[in-house]
C-alpha cells in the first residue's frame, strides 16, 4: 500500500537532523528503525508529514557499552535485538535484555531501537517500566547544546514526550545506572501471546537490600495509565521493612490502587488492576532473585 508523499532525508550529523527537525517542526518526523514511524505515517497518526528524517546515518549513536560509574549507555541507533542478545546487558542488567526481548518479533527487534520505543511513548511500551525502575536518564541534542532528562519526566501522555519539537530536540542515548552490590531488578510482562503482543500490563522493580531489609525500591507499571507510572505508595510501604510474603502482597494491593487503567480489547480495567496486584509481588520476588553479590 502506498504511503503518503514525503521527502526522505538521511541526516549525516546531529546538527543537520536537528536543524531540519526545527525548521519543519510541524511536518517532519524523526526515524531510526522505522517500525512504528512507517505505520504512523501511513495512518496519519503523526499529522501531515512531508519530511522523514532518518538518523541511521549519523555517526556515534550506536553505543551499547558499560561505563564505570555511569552504567549502561544505549545509543539512539542501538537495536532492541542487539540489547536482547548482548552478553554485556545480560551480565549487567538481565531485566533490560528481557524487556527488549518482549518487544514484538525478532524481525521488528532487528530494526527497532530502544530509543525509538520510548520516543513513541506508548503507555504499554515494554522498555519503559524497567527504565523508570532503574531511574534512567535520557540524553538529548539540540542547537543550544542538549540536556539530560530523567526518565520520570520524559513521558507526558499517550504518544507525548518532554522533547521540545520546536527546538529540534533529538534523543541521542539513554543512560541506565548499573546494578550495584545488593541491588536487583526485574521486568515482567503479562500478555496473551508471549511474542508479538502488546502488554496487558507490565511491572518492573528495582530493589536495594541491606541484609533482609528493603533499603530502597522503585516499582514501575506499564499499560495502566496515559504514561508508564511509578507505584510510589507501594514503594513507601516497602522501604525500611523486612522482606516477607505478606509485605509483597500488601505492596501489590497498594500498587493496584495507584494504577489508572482503561478497558479495551486486551483487558478490562478491573482485570488490569488485579494483574498489577499479582505482578507487583512477582516482580519484587524476581528482583530479589537477581541481587548482585
Amino acid at each position, binding site marked *: *500500500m*502506498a*504511503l*503518503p*508523499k*514525503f*521527502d*526522505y532525508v*538521511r541526516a549525516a550529523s546531529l546538527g543537520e537532523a536537528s536543524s531540519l527537525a526545527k525548521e519543519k517542526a510541524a511536518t517532519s518526523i524523526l526515524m531510526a528503525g*522505522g*517500525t512504528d514511524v*512507517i*505505520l504512523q505515517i501511513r495512518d496519519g497518526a503523526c499529522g501531515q508529514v512531508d519530511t*522523514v528524517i*532518518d538518523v*541511521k546515518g549519523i555517526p556515534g549513536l550506536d553505543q551499547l557499552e558499560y561505563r564505570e560509574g555511569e552504567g549502561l549507555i544505549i545509543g539512539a541507533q542501538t537495536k532492541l*535485538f542487539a540489547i536482547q*542478545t548482548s552478553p554485556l546487558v545480560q551480565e549487567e542488567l538481565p531485566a533490560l535484555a528481557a524487556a527488549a526481548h518482549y518487544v*514484538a*518479533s*525478532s*524481525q*521488528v527487534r*532487528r*530494526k527497532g531501537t530502544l530509543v525509538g520505543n520510548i520516543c513513541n511513548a506508548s503507555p504499554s511500551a515494554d522498555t519503559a517500566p524497567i527504565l523508570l525502575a532503574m531511574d534512567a536518564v535520557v540524553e538529548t541534542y539540540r542547537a543550544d547544546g542538549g540536556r539530560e532528562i530523567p526518565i520520570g519526566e520524559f513521558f507526558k501522555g499517550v504518544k507525548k514526550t518532554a522533547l521540545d519539537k520546536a527546538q529540534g530536540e533529538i534523543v541521542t542515548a539513554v543512560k541506565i545506572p548499573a546494578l550495584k552490590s545488593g541491588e536487583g531488578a526485574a521486568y515482567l510482562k503479562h500478555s496473551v501471546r*508471549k*511474542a*508479538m503482543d502488546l502488554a496487558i500490563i507490565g511491572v518492573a522493580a528495582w530493589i536495594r537490600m541491606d541484609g533482609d531489609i528493603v533499603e530502597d525500591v522503585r516499582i514501575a507499571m506499564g499499560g495502566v495509565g496515559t504514561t508508564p507510572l511509578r507505584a510510589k505508595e507501594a514503594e513507601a510501604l516497602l522501604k525500611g521493612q523486612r522482606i516477607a510474603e505478606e509485605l509483597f502482597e500488601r505492596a501489590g494491593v497498594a500498587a493496584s490502587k495507584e494504577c489508572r487503567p482503561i478497558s479495551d480489547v486486551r483487558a478490562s480495567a478491573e482485570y488490569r488492576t488485579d494483574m498489577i496486584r499479582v505482578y507487583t509481588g512477582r516482580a519484587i520476588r524476581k528482583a530479589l532473585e537477581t541481587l548482585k553479590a
Partner: protein
Amino acid sequence: MKRVISFKLNGEDVEAYVQDNITMVDFLRKQMHLTGTKRGCEEGECGACTILLDGGAVDSCLMLAVEADGHEVVTIEGVQKDGVLHPLQKEFMDKWALQCGFCTPGMIMSALSLLHENPHPTEQQIRDGIAGNLCRCTGYAKIVEAIDAAAKVLAKEVGA
C-alpha cells in the same frame, strides 16, 4: 522525491530509481518483480514479507526502499544456489511444513536468519525465531520440525 539507490540484491549489485515513500516490499514486488516476498498484513504482524537485511530477518513492509541503499538484501529468490534448493527449502517440502504456502517464504527467511545466528537452536529458540511469522494452516509443528531437521543437515555439512 525520487533517488537512485545502489545495494546488493540476492548477491548482485543493483542500482534502482526509487520513490522516497515506497516500502521495500512494494519495491521488491512491483519494481524488481520479485514476488516471492509476500504482502500480508502490511504492519509487521504476520512476517509474510520477511527478507534478510545485512543477514538478519526484517519485515520489508516496515522498511522504506531507500533504506536499502548501501546494504545487502536477500529475498526468498536468492536462497537457492545455482538451482539447488537450500536444506531449509528441502526440509519444508519433505516434512510437509506448508499447506497454502503463503507464509513459507517469510518462514524460511526467518529460519535462515535464526540458523545463521544460532546454528544449534532448541525447539524453544526455533519457536521464538519464527514468533513474528503467522501460519494459519499447519499449526507450526511441521515447520518447527523442518527447521530443526535443516539445522542438523547444515551442521553435518559444516562438519563434513
